[in-house]
Every structure is written in C-alpha cells, then in structure tokens.
C-alpha cells in the first residue's frame, strides 16, 4: 500500500514542483502570522529542493522525464519535460530559494514591517512557483505564463524595499519586464502560426521541416530580445542595478541567483532546442550579435562596478558582467563553451547569492552597504568578511573556487573556436573583478574603523549559516566538479545534438 503510494508520488514529482508552492502561497496568506507563514514556506522550499534532487537523480539514471499534465498526452496536452539541462537549473533555483529563505526572517525584520512578512513569504513562494514552472515545462505558452507569475511577484518583492527608490526601481523593472514578456509572447505566437503547436519538442520537429522563412526568423528575433531583457543582457540591463540595489537584501540574494538564470535557461532552450543551431546561428547569425553584446557586458559591467560607492550596487553591476560570461558561453556554440555557460549559471548563482547575503549581514549590523560602512569590518565582523573574501575570490576566478571552473571552460571554448581575443577579454574582465573586490577588501581589512563607530557584533547565526553554506558550496564545487560540470557537459552535448 505505502509502496504503491510512494510510486504514485514519485511519478508525479515534476507536477508537485509547481503545485505545492502555489498552494502553499495561499496557505501563507490564510495563516496571516509571520512565524507560521515562514514555517510553511520553509517546509515547502526545502521539500522542493529535495524534490529537485530526486528529479536530477532520476534524469541522470533514466534519461529525460516526460510528464503529461492531467493525463493529456503531448503534443495536445501540456507536457512537463525534464532533461539534464533543466534538472540542473531546477536544482540550483530551488536550492537557492530554500537557503535564502532560511536567512530571511532576521534580515526582513529590518527592512519590511513585521505585519507584512506573511505576504512577502507568500509572494516569495509564488515567485518560486513561476521560476520552477518555467524550468520544468515543455510547453512554450506555459513558459510565458510562468514567466509572468515569477515576474509579477518579483516586482512586488522589489517594491518592498525600505526606501522610496525601491518603488521607482520596481516600476522601471515592471515596464521593461512586461515589454520583454510581451516580446516572448509575440515570438511564441509566430512559431505557433508556422507550426500549429505549442509543445517544444513538436515545435522543433516542425520548424526543422519548415526551414528559415521570415516568420520563423522574426519569431527568433522577438524571443531573443524578450529573453535578453529578462536576462539583463547589456545594453538591456538598465532595470537590474536599481532593482538589485533597492530591493530588500534577501530578495536581492534570491532574485540575483534565480530570475536571470532561468531567463538564460529559456534563451538556451529556445535557441538550441526549438530553433536549432542551423537556424539561429546559420540563418540569423545570432552568435555574432550575442558574442558582441556579451563581451561589451563583461567589460562595461566590470568597469562601472569599479566606480560604485554602494557595494550592493557594485555587485549588481558585477552581475551584468557575469551574465555576459554566460551569454558568451552560448555564443561560442561549442561543447566547451556551452558547458562553461551552463556551469557559470550554476556557479554564479552560488557566489552571487552568497555575496548578497553578506550584504544582508553588513546591512543588519551597520545599517548601510556603502563603502564607508565597510571600514574596519575585517576586525569587527571577521566571519562575515571572510565569507565576502572567499566568494569574491570566486568571482575573480581564483583556482579551487567555482569561478575558476567556469572561466576555464569558457577560455578553453574560446581558444578551441579560434577566438583568442575573446579569451583575452575574459582575462581582462577577471582583472577588473579583482579591482572591485579589492576595493572592498582594502577598506574592510586595512582601514581602521572610525573613532565614533558604534560597537557592533558578528551577524546572527541565522544569517551566517546560510551565507557560509553558499560560500562553502563555491569552494566545494570548485574542487569537486563532477556534479556541476558533469551534468552541464551532458546538457551541452544534448543541446548541440550530440548524444553521448
């Protein structure tokens, strides 16, 4: 009996990944109590993470999972389709969700009135539903719907920041994000006109038969522009620095590691699985456009980051640069390059959410994330600043951290494809990262605290624990690369149509 029950549940794991957080979000609203809502959200988030691990294990042993929602078989019904690529994305998204949520109560209490916390947790779960839904679904229109669920909830989360600038950042993101989402919808509509299907697998078969006609090319262009806005690809990134700077600290840690990553996944999925390499890079030359923008993002994002006074904003600009690395991996169109791009998705999620949690710690104790606030923090908050240094080294790409792993694959990919100037730009951008991380380290360790600085203690364990979990993971996955690189190279081969 129980075995039978477990069997049923195991088959339904992909659907539960969406249904459970969605229902739990309404439970949080009903509960209306801060603590209860947090406990509900915690249980659901960690259960989703566990679920994602089970799904990844199943994908690795049994191959692609296809789940027919409501028993309606694809291509007529909505299919959830999980292969090695989205299993990895799902793992990192739910993992970051759960870890950041663990750190949430203390940091939120500083920035959001306590009476509103239960709504924040509910919206947080909705955002997670949308992100997980976009990742697991095998239906193009479903991607749009989940994209809007996650986007709408992220606008609401960002607007909860403690200053009024959070509001203007949220509306700016809302306008840009809606334009992006609508472009994606338009692109999906054009593919539907040509193929008469919404199922991703079916679409790719039909499109391969149709070949490069103008409607297909315009559809690809619309989807590329739409995802580039959601991805914050330079120069469509203008919403990102403000949104990340003025959102509550934990919301930034969560969104920085998940929202743009899932948008990157959607771009990969459409470019490689739906349109295919010939169409995207042969007929439209998307690789040239994306490589140019990616290189600009890497250099411009890092340079602008160097001149920021608010460290949270500095990290946001660094995100723009890091997104450039990911897109660069895509534009190289080789196994090594694509592996680098996907691994960087995984790695950057770990280090950026770790760094933004460090910002949450600093904000909690000093009340500011401006550079002046870091004076003498190396002595005053040694454990927090040590986390910053480790994650910062990872951002630069020092060996034995995750940053090195992804840059290694990207440089290898660039040299393999004969683009050695690209490899040089990767190194230059890493040096720029060294400069902006060093600025903070110098102020924190080599400048004494101002005389009148109040006595401050270390950040509370509830924040330090999740921070060090993420920072520890950047070192762990920098040394034991079999999970991240193994799955990523598998996914890269699959995307390029070379089954191992």
């Amino acid at each position, binding site marked *: 009996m129980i075995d039978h029950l477990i069997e049923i549940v195991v088959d339904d794991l992909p659907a539960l990944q969406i249904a459970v957080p969605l229902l739990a979000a309404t439970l949080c609203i009903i509960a209306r109590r801060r603590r209860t809502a947090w406990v509900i959200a915690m249980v659901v988030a960690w259960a989703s993470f566990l679920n994602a691990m089970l799904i990844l294990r199943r994908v690795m042993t049994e191959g692609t999972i296809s789940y027919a929602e409501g028993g309606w078989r694809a291509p007529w019904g909505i299919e959830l389709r999980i292969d090695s690529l989205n299993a990895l994305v799902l793992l990192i998204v739910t993992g970051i969700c759960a870890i950041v949520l663990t750190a949430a109560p203390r940091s939120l209490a500083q920035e959001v009135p306590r009476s509103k916390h239960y709504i924040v947790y509910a919206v947080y779960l909705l955002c997670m539903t949308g992100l997980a839904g976009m990742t697991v679904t095998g239906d193009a*229109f479903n991607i749009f719907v989940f994209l809007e669920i996650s986007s*709408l909830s992220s606008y609401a989360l960002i607007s909860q920041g403690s200053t009024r*600038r959070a*509001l*203007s950042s949220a*509306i700016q993101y*809302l306008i840009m994000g*809606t334009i992006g*989402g609508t472009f994606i919808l338009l692109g999906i*509509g054009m593919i539907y006109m040509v193929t008469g299907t919404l199922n991703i697998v079916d679409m790719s078969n039909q499109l391969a038969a149709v070949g490069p006609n103008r409607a297909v090319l315009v559809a690809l262009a619309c989807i590329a522009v739409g995802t580039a806005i959601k991805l914050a690809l330079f120069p469509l990134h203008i919403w990102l620095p403000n949104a990340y700077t003025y959102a509550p600290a934990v919301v930034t840690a969560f969104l920085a590691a998940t929202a743009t990553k899932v948008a990157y996944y959607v771009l990969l999925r459409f470019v490689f699985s739906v349109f295919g390499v010939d169409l995207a890079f042969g007929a439209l030359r998307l690789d040239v456009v994306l490589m140019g923008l990616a290189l600009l993002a890497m250099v411009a994002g890092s340079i602008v980051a160097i001149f920021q006074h608010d460290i949270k904003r500095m990290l946001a600009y660094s995100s723009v640069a890091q997104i450039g690395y990911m897109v660069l991996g895509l534009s190289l169109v080789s196994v090594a390059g694509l592996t680098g791009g996907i691994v960087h998705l995984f790695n950057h999620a770990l280090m950026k959410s770790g760094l933004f949690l460090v910002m949450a710690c600093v904000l909690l104790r000093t009340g500011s994330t401006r550079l002046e606030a870091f004076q003498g923090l190396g002595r005053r908050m040694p454990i927090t600043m040590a986390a910053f240094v480790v994650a910062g080294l990872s951002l630069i790409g020092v060996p034995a951290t995750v940053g090195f792993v992804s840059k290694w694959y990207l440089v290898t990919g660039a040299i393999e494809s004969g683009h050695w100037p690209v490899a040089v730009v990767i190194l230059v951008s890493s040096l720029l990262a060294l400069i902006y991380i060093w600025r903070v380290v110098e102020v924190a360790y080599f400048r004494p605290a101002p005389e009148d600085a109040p006595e401050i203690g270390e950040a509370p364990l509830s924040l330090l624990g999740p921070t060090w979990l993420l920072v520890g993971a950047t070192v762990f996955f920098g040394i034991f690369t079999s999970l991240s690189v193994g799955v990523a190279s598998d996914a890269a081969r699959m995307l390029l149509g070379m089954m191992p």
Partner: protein
Amino acid sequence: MFDWGLYNYWVVIFLMMAGLYVVISRSNLVKKIIGLNVFQVSVIMFYISMGKVRGGTAPIEAEGFEIYSNPLPHVLMLTAIVVGVATTALALSIVVRIHEAYDTIEEDEIRLLDEGDEP
C-alpha cells in the same frame, strides 16, 4: 503591391509601435502604463486574428456549419488578458505608492528627487 488581405497584421504592428512609443516618450507613469497596455493588446489581437478562419464559426458542432475558427489562440489570450490585467493592477498600485512617497508621478521629477536622496 500593398496586400490588403493582411491588413489585420498592419493594425497589430501599428498598435504595437504606438504603444511602445508611448512607453518610451511619455514620462507620466500612468501614460506609460496605458502605452504598455496598448502594446500588450496588440499582441492579443495578433493571436485573435491568427486563429480566425475566413467564414468560420465558433467551434461548436451544429448542422450546417463546416468551417470552424481555431479556438486555441483565443483561449490562450484569455490567459494573456488575465496577465495583462494583473500587470496593470500591480503597476497602478505601485504608482499609487510612488505618488504617496514622491508626491509626483512624472518620471523626470522622480529622477531629480532620487538624485537628491543620494548622500
């Protein structure tokens, strides 16, 4: 030659560009949101018109009707309309809060006030 048979797509493109232009050119946030709505509606009309079959009726089986329009894009747009409404509602509620916090909904004035906030 100009093909009048595709005039519906010209309408769609016109609305889309008009909406996008309003979003870009106006600094009043409510006007921006109206532009955003026009932009979204153009895509909704795009889907609606692509599902329409000339001479087709609603897809309900009845005697004397042979040609049916494709209902799927129309159903999809029900969802898209809901998304549009939710977006507008959220945007307007943020605008209300912006008005409370800044006492203005003109984007350039907000930007000036924001720069004043910088220490």
